[in-house]
């Protein structure tokens, strides 16, 4: 990561206007979005959208042809091109042919993608953005910090200053007055412009129609007052039929701004009369710019299901800290990272893809059903293939790929840390490494790893056995969690088997794009874990559980290693997370929680993989409540804690403030104990609370429940 990029991140993090505004917005959005969708089956709606858009993406040629035919039959001119330069030239020529000096624009991401304004301005034509936020950004010579709210990072004072400097002196920081001022100044521009440029939110092939959505009403003016209207439309906006408009128009305002519908929607089909009675010139540019190529990519085709609502930005724990500027000039946030990799260049996503912490919040809300974190991982994989891994990464993964060496080093690290580990925490690391733990204490490597302690556990021989997969953190940092799991399962009359050859689940390698390394980890684990004939393979780490249950298959599929798939699927069918298994055992009468217990107030933190990939947020809550704890839910319980595996080491400056929020939310519940199902979250949150000197205890659900059964 270049220092320049790190500097950009730090600049953003230190901008209280940006983080304040985005933070407040993300909190309000979460609630208002749910309200906007009241009474609507979101899953059904987004399935419909995904189908409509996926169909379009696999029929771009056909739909573009149909659109062109139908729009031209109604009197529009249509240009379809893959080349951004042709788009720019077409518009410039059109302006020159018609003697146009002034252009007004309503918001169009497609024109931003090809830097149209700069090009036209260089040619001596005045171009005015008319969306208020875009105008402010244009006047202040900045780039948008958010796709839907471009100037969210600016205060009214800053806006007043920009207006005063760039337009007319003496503007006061009073929002209604600033808005009125903009209305007056831009009204003149609308009335004088010879050409209006818009984007479009939907393009309907069967009728040749454009659907344009705005709140301010600027698109209505752009498409009404100038005699020429040019719409620059990315071909991914195409849908087959008018019926397809309904689900998109239902979701877009709700997901975008939590509105039932935006103030204005214009559905334009062919030219309409101008105010002087002449017919309007309507030019529609269907811009490809690698979208067709993207549609042919089996993985990234999915990204064309995006309706540009920006909800992935609004729920992202990283975006709400750093805003859009660090992502680049055009598309921002999770989906922006993917679009930048395609519309700009794969290399252009090299640094920004690292911002994704893989929490999966965006997957839950995406109306296009896009697996954004999954696609970002795929970018990571392709970047790793194209550019190779760093020397440090290579060295680290060479070790991870050799279990004996890896575990040997972890054991050796236990000795090396002696001088710095106190009370189970590493408080001071030597030299440069100390930066990485500044915001939390790191756990010390356990004196005796779980694999050694396990041998000392005297288990009664049982008919039923399960395989326990520990994962590195339980094995080498928190062996007591593993012991708790064994004790509880024994109570249910189940014997635990611990295959010694099990090794790292491959998540660190996979999340770094090193799929070959992850595949080797997967293959080694398959061998170790399938040896035993058991019904369940249980893990007390949700990230490991997801690796075993989903990622092994995904990694093999990505690499085309189909030979490994049957075994990976065989394992996947057996894998279960700790709380879900215990809940099954309780429901089956195999385990009984002690009755009549009145225990302390407790709060629960949802781990990303448990909540959003395994959908297992209820089992631990139910178990803890049945055990007698009073569950006091924290605010944003399912928001990432900032750990993200090696993320907290790579981007500690982002991980730290995410953790800070989590700690605040925990403390506000006044609970003295916080439960969670992930040793990674325990490491992050316990480390943060320890650093804070807080007395709140952090425990894995297994540790809390260890003595709760009869």
């Amino acid at each position, binding site marked *: 990561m270049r220092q320049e990029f790190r500097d950009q991140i730090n600049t953003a993090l230190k901008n209280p206007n940006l983080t304040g*505004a985005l933070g*407040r*917005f993300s909190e309000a959005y979460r609630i208002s979005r749910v309200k906007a969708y009241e009474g609507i089956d979101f899953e059904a709606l987004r399935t419909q959208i995904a189908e409509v858009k996926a169909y379009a993406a696999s029929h771009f040629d056909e739909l573009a042809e149909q659109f062109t035919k139908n729009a031209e039959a*109604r009197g529009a001119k249509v240009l379809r091109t893959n080349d951004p330069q042709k788009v720019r030239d077409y518009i410039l020529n059109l302006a020159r042919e018609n003697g146009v000096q002034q252009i007004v624009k309503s918001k169009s991401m497609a024109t931003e993608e090809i830097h149209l304004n700069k090009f036209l301005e260089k040619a001596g034509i005045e171009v005015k953005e*008319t*969306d*208020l*936020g875009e105008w*402010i950004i244009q006047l202040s010579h900045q780039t948008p910090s958010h796709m839907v*709210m*471009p*100037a*969210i990072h*600016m205060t*009214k004072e800053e*806006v007043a200053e920009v207006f005063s400097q760039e337009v007319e002196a003496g503007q006061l920081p009073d*929002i*209604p007055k*600033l*808005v*009125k001022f*903009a*209305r007056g100044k*831009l*009204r003149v521009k*609308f*009335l004088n412009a010879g050409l209006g440029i818009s984007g479009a939110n939907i393009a*309907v092939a069967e*009728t*040749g129609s454009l659907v344009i959505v705005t*709140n*301010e*009403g*600027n698109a*209505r*003016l752009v*498409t*009404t007052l100038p005699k020429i209207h040019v719409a620059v439309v990315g071909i991914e906006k195409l849908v087959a039929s*008018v*019926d397809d*408009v*309904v689900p998109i128009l239902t979701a877009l305002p709700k997901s975008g*701004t939590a*509105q*039932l*519908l*935006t*103030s*204005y*929607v*214009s*559905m*334009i*089909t*062919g*030219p*309409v*009369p101008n*105010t*002087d009675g002449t017919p309007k010139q309507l030019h529609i540019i269907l811009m490809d710019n690698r979208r067709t190529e993207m549609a042919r990519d089996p993985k990234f085709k999915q990204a064309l299901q995006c309706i540009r609502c920006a909800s992935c930005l609004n729920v992202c724990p990283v975006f709400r800290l750093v805003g859009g500027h660090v992502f680049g000039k055009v598309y921002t946030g999770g989906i922006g990272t993917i679009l930048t990799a395609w519309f700009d260049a794969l290399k252009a996503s090299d640094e920004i893809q690292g911002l994704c912490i893989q929490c999966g919040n965006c997957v839950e809300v995406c109306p296009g059903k896009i697996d954004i974190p999954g696609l970002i991982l795929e970018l990571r994989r392709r970047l790793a293939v194209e550019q190779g891994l760093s020397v440090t990464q290579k060295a680290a993964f060479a070790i991870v790929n050799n279990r004996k060496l890896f575990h040997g080093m972890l054991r050796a690290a236990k000795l090396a840390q002696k001088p710095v580990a106190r009370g189970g925490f590493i408080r001071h690391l030597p030299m440069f490494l100390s930066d990485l733990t500044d915001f939390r204490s790191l756990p010390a490597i356990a004196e005796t790893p779980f694999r050694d302690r396990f041998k000392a556990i005297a288990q009664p021989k049982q008919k039923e056995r399960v395989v326990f997969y520990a994962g590195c953190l339980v094995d080498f940092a928190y062996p007591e969690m593993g012991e708790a799991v064994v004790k509880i399962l024994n109570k249910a009359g189940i014997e635990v088997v611990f295959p010694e050859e099990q090794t790292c689940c491959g998540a660190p390698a996979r999340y770094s794009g090193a799929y070959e390394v992850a595949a080797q980890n997967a293959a080694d684990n398959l061998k170790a874990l399938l040896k035993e004939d058991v019904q369940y393979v249980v893990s007390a780490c949700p990230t490991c559980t997801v690796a075993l249950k989903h990622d092994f298959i995904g990694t093999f599929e990505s690499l085309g290693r189909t030979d490994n798939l049957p075994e990976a699927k065989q394992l996947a069918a057996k894998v279960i997370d700790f709380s879900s298994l215990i809940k099954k055992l309780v429901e089956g009468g195999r385990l009984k929680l002690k009755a009549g217990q009145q225990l302390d107030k407790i709060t629960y933190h949802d781990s990303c993989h448990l909540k959003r990939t395994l959908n297992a947020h209820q089992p631990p809550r139910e178990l803890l409540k049945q055990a007698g704890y009073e569950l006091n839910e924290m605010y944003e319980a399912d928001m990432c804690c900032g750990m993200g595996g090696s993320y907290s080491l790579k981007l500690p400056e982002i991980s730290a403030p995410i953790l800070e929020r989590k700690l605040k939310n925990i403390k506000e519940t006044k609970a003295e104990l916080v439960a969670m199902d992930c040793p990674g979250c325990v490491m992050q949150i316990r480390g943060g609370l320890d650093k804070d000197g807080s007395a709140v205890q952090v425990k894995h659900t297994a540790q809390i429940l260890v003595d709760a059964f009869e």
Partner: protein
Amino acid sequence: MSTIFDTFKARAEAVSAEVHRFPTKPEALDFILQFLQKENIADAPEAYAAWADCPFLSSFDKAQLAGRVPGLKFEVTRQIAADARVGISELDWGIANTGTLVQDAAAVEKRLVSTLPIIHIALVGANAIVPDLGALLARIGPRQASYLAFITGPSRTADIERVLTIGVHGPERLVIVCVDELGGAN
């Protein structure tokens, strides 16, 4: 039908539209004329009222109305609309679950009076309100109208500090006048 209207009214008011309902056209007209008087409509730039031709007007004598309200214009040009305080037009449909008005706005006058003035008075038949977008597109679509305009509340922005501010480029007030007698295309 009353429940559909109630939903429409509630949803439209939730996005800051003002909703009135009258049984007959003369009552609606009375309301509009009084409204224009209250808004000090006069025969001077920035004080005009511009009324785009519509079926509602067929019941009345335009010349007589113009005589009663100086500044009320039925010849809608770009300049008149830009100088008007109030714009009046008839919308063809309502959508209940979003509080939306819909219009075949191919005729430019209809768009001028609903975009440029500060206040937009929107007439609509109380029976022209359909439940949702799907129901609307089953009745009118791009094949019939080359500029189909959807209006939901007044013009709004939240681009400065996310503070909702009404009336940026379009009207800052949307006054919906539902008329039972207008029937509508339903």
